[in-house]
């Protein structure tokens, strides 16, 4: 039984299925546990903005690797070698814009969603244009991930997508619906570990089969060892196009516009910790992930070359025959683990982990937009927290259903998985990423310009699908079939057109709008920080953390305020009214039990005491038997 380049006995199918089903069930139960940490929709979607940097950062490992990643990048790694890492290793160029610009803006302005930013920065029309484009982007990813895993399961086990996709969607929809963002983060953390273990297991088996690291490198063609492909030779995968399409448009979309990633950053306790998470993501997570998803392709290439040089299969292994390069990951793994169904089942479970960890984030993100940008402002502006929490759960269910239905549309598309992916994304993102960029970094950019540039930029980009000749001047140096030329350069074209329209309209309509955008642009961050403190002066002095604080109940302390001794305040470098983050002393909880509060001095307290009301204490999920740690935020 089986195709996808491998043959499975019914016993093997049974073993693989047991591992995969047990894995999915465990994750669903684990995620469901976190339902208890959701008292309101801020908890449900943003986990109360309480986490330490490492928890969301580590959970981003799994979020960034989709079910398509292993299949797509292994294929790319087999075809072009280590240049498959290019899309993962070119994100640093954005660092100044994100670390000093976009992250502080959304954090201090307490932005809940990108469309909300558009409303506050521009107007309602801009909000709903942005919302339409962002939902198209995210639903595209949800449908695409479900479709990819459906294709893989259908290929390996002949399980119809009609069954596999809805069943998988039901499992992951269940824990997102009940557990919210906290469940997403903790399951993604678990699944990230799972992905890395399975990935390194597959890599180790492959290197071992080859006879060691030296043999792998020595039998890898020189063109496959290089970190970059030819500048312009292959229209569908070239360094120039990847820079504009991936390093700029794609990375801006992922870090500035992807509501899922944005929400992950908004769960973090401070901008400083958010910067640490961004740093970790680009410096550690992305490079390691690039190896995990692409290495099987590099190993596959070396295996095939070594087989050709030595005249047959490697000793102790079946002959590796990769007829369809899309099957590279499955064929190489199956062969190098000696066709052990239990080990292979673990690797298939990793594929599912990649799917679940990406889609759960997107479902939660789409539901957040549904609540914050549609339901709350348009349908039910005034309702209780319980009502919105219930609505958020319904929004998660509806999102899951829409994503599942989209798989039908993906099945009607022609071309490889990679070309479907890039064609779709490179059409959707250029106009909105340019508009976000201009909005955040150019104060004069106004509402009319934002709306016109988003609409006209998107429309012109879509039109180039049928009339691509205007893109030719940008991609003049590429060769190959015409339709392939424009996968990435369409994104560059869309961004340039949108920027030109935005600039011209701003100049023509300048002075016709007098909207206060203070705190929403890069040059007004000081005011944003002050607003974040309810008008207080931002305190940027860097103090120390205060450990070992014992809770003292003080009924007359205002909610969301704490009182500390003079000694503790001095150590924190804090003044009365500063925002302080108080957390459970067990660091490994990552801030699951924590809270942001305003601090004031109480000379009557000792340096080991912190006073607050019982209500504040419970809001933070603190437990009396554990001491607390205080840290000044601003």
């Amino acid at each position, binding site marked *: 039984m089986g195709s996808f380049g491998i043959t499975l006995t019914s016993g093997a199918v049974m073993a693989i299925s047991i591992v995969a089903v047990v894995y999915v069930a465990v994750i669903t139960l684990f995620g469901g546990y976190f339902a208890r940490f959701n008292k309101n929709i801020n908890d449900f979607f943003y986990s109360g903005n309480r986490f330490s940097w490492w928890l969301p950062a580590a959970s981003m490992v799994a979020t960034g690797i989709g079910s398509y990643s292993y299949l797509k990048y292994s294929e790319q790694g087999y075809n072009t070698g280590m240049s498959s890492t290019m899309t993962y290793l070119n994100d*640093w160029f954005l*660092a100044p814009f994100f670390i000093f610009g976009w992250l502080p803006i959304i954090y201090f302005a307490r932005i809940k969603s990108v469309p909300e930013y558009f409303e506050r920065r521009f107007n309602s029309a801009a909000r709903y244009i942005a919302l339409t484009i962002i939902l198209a982007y995210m639903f595209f990813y949800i449908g695409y991930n479900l479709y990819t895993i459906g294709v893989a399961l259908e290929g390996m086990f002949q399980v119809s997508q009609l069954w596999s996709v809805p069943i998988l969607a039901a499992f992951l929809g269940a824990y997102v619906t009940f557990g919210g963002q906290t469940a997403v983060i903790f399951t993604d953390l678990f699944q990230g570990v799972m992905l890395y273990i399975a990935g390194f297991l597959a890599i180790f088996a492959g290197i071992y089969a080859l006879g060691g690291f030296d043999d792998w490198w020595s039998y890898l063609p020189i063109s496959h060892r290089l970190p*970059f492909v030819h500048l312009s030779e292959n229209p569908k995968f070239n360094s120039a196009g990847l820079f504009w399409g991936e390093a700029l448009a794609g990375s801006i979309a992922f870090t500035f516009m992807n509501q899922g990633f944005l929400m992950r950053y908004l769960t973090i306790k401070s901008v400083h910790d958010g910067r640490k998470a961004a740093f970790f993501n680009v410096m550690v997570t992305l490079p390691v992930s690039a190896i995990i998803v692409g290495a099987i392709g590099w190993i596959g290439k070396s295996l095939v070359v070594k087989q050709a040089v030595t005249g047959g299969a490697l000793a102790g292994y079946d002959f590796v025959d990769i007829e369809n390069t899309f099957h590279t990951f499955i064929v190489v793994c199956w062969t190098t683990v000696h066709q052990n169904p239990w080990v292979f089942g673990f690797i298939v479970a990793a594929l599912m982990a990649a799917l679940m960890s990406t889609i759960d984030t997107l479902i939660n993100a789409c539901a957040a937009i549904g609540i914050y940008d549609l339901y709350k402002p348009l349908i039910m502006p005034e309702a209780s927290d319980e009502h919105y929490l219930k609505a958020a759960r319904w929004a998660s269910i509806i999102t899951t259903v829409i994503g599942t239905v989209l798989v039908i549309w993906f099945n009607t598309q022609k071309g490889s998985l990679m070309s479907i992916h890039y064609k779709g994304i490179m059409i959707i993102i250029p106009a909105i990423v340019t508009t976000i960029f201009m909005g955040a970094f*150019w104060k*004069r950019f106004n509402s009319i310009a934002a709306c016109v540039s988003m609409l006209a930029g998107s429309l012109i980009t879509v039109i180039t699908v049928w009339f691509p000749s205007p893109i030719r001047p940008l991609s003049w140096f590429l060769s190959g079939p015409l339709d392939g030329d424009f996968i990435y350069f369409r994104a560059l074209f869309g961004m340039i057109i949108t920027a030109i329209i935005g600039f011209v309209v701003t100049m023509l309509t300048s002075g016709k709008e007098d909207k206060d955008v203070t705190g929403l642009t*890069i*040059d007004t961050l000081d005011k944003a920080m002050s607003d974040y403190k309810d008008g207080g002066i931002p305190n940027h002095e860097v103090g120390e953390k205060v450990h070992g604080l014992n809770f003292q109940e003080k009924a007359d302390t205002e909610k969301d305020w704490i009182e500390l001794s003079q000694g503790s305040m001095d150590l924190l470098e804090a003044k009365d009214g500063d925002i302080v983050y108080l957390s459970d002393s067990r660091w490994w909880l990552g801030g699951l039990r924590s809270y942001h509060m305003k601090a004031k001095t109480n000379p009557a307290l000792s340096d080991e005491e912190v006073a607050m009301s019982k209500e504040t204490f419970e809001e933070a999920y603190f437990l009396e038997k554990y001491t607390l740690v205080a840290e000044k935020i601003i």
Partner: protein
Amino acid sequence: MDQQSASAYKWWLMVPLFLVFAFFFPRLLANSLGPDNPWTSYLYLYGFGFFYTGSGLLLVTKTGACNFNRQRDLFWFKIVVGGFFYFAALHAVWIYLGLSIPYLGGQ
């Protein structure tokens, strides 16, 4: 022209500067090293990348988003600059090793 307008126009001068760079830089690379040279892709990426990261750093410092009087901003500024050179060095070493270690596949 008020101060805000003057400042905006000054920023938009970056655009023609970039267009000139974008026009000549790939041609310079193609004519000097040739499109087949592995270092051409490297220089293309880090040439445009330097322009992009550099303009970002300039923007955040000029607008006050990165303020060296804030202790942590100076730290993160150094990290951003260091990160750029870290990736550039990593890729350079990678290309060097790829080219210098013999291939046993027989081409």
